[in-house]
């Protein structure tokens, strides 16, 4: 019998408010996620991303195998947990998704508008660059989160991210900190990690990119930040903007030392 059906029934019965239950619904959800992550459909997208990485395409008929993710051209193992980082060739700090799109444009000769015409997954499916990010993330499985802070721009990006994190705006007068600035907060059925502390910040990174079961597609941390902005009723950030890189850097640096478990699974 489908193991998902069994576990869904178990999770459902736990939610039914059994007086004998020793664990909270949140803990049950986490157990459910732990089991689901063992055979995560995200692996199918890791495989797809790996194939994309190795296949020549575009006007330059090149693969992505010369793409430098910070550890040298073509080095994928361990690169995801060492981002965001400074890249000398663009004199900018970039996160993984931004760097992948950059490589698709520069190495393969694809137009930026073409690559990003569907920036995030939706019911049309998972775009290629998202599969590539999933592949790269999988290659940092069980490694410690370690974004560098050696270059002045890396430290500056962290500080900018910290400022944005605390900046209240929009009609709700929300900042990231409003939801994620202290322990023990929750919205509806979702626990909110405290992103200012290592364990909490790690919770914001572990599990992304994540396979969203309800859509059958992959969602990245770029998507997650953009959706946070929507929930705060902020203007929509430009895709792959400095703003998003900065808050990703703030989170990643706060999470340093925690272990990244690879792509996760979401409802």
């Amino acid at each position, binding site marked *: 019998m489908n193991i*998902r059906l069994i576990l869904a029934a178990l999770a459902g019965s736990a939610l039914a408010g059994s007086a004998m239950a020793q664990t909270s619904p949140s803990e049950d959800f986490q157990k459910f996620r732990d089991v689901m992550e063992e055979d995560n459909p995200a692996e199918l997208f890791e495989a797809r991303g790996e194939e994309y990485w190795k296949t020549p395409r575009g006007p330059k008929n090149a693969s992505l195998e010369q793409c430098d993710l910070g550890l040298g051209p073509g080095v994928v193992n361990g690169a995801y947990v060492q981002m965001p980082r400074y890249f000398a060739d663009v004199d900018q700090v970039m996160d993984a998704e931004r760097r992948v799109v950059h490589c698709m444009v520069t190495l393969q000769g694809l137009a930026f508008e073409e690559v990003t015409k569907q920036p995030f997954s939706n019911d049309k499916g998972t775009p290629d660059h998202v599969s590539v990010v999933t592949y790269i993330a999988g290659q940092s499985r069980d490694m410690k989160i370690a974004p560098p802070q050696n270059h002045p721009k890396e430290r500056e990006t962290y500080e900018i991210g910290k400022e944005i994190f605390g900046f209240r705006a929009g009609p709700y007068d929300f900042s990231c900190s409003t939801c994620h600035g202290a322990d023990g907060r929750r919205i509806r059925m979702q626990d909110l990690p405290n992103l200012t502390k290592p364990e909490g910040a790690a919770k914001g990174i572990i599990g992304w990119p994540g396979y969203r079961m309800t859509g059958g597609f992959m969602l990245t941390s770029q998507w997650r930040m953009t959706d946070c902005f929507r929930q705060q009723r902020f203007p929509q950030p430009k895709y792959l903007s400095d703003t998003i890189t900065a808050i990703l850097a703030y989170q990643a640096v706060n999470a340093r030392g925690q272990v990244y478990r690879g792509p996760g699974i979401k409802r």
Partner: protein
Amino acid sequence: MADPMKIRATLKGDTVEVRVLMAHNMETGARKDSSGGLIPAHFIQTVNATHNGKLVFAAQWGTAIAKNPFLQFKFKGGAKGDKLQLSWTDNKNDSRTDEATIA
């Protein structure tokens, strides 16, 4: 051919435990697209697994099976290093066959 399956087959005692992830959209035929038209049904109909030429698992699936489905089953009589073949066919006659080694 469709995207490859991810197959894990491990021997535990005298039983081989097989776990498979299949890449498939699994459209029910009941969904509508943004312009209101029905998205045609596209789903896996049969799944077979053979070990040393012998059929060890067979399934007939319908539209209730999830997208990118996960399948788990067990069988006896397998040994480490043996090959296991898994294949599926869907209602559009697309198919996929992959092989795995029992670990």
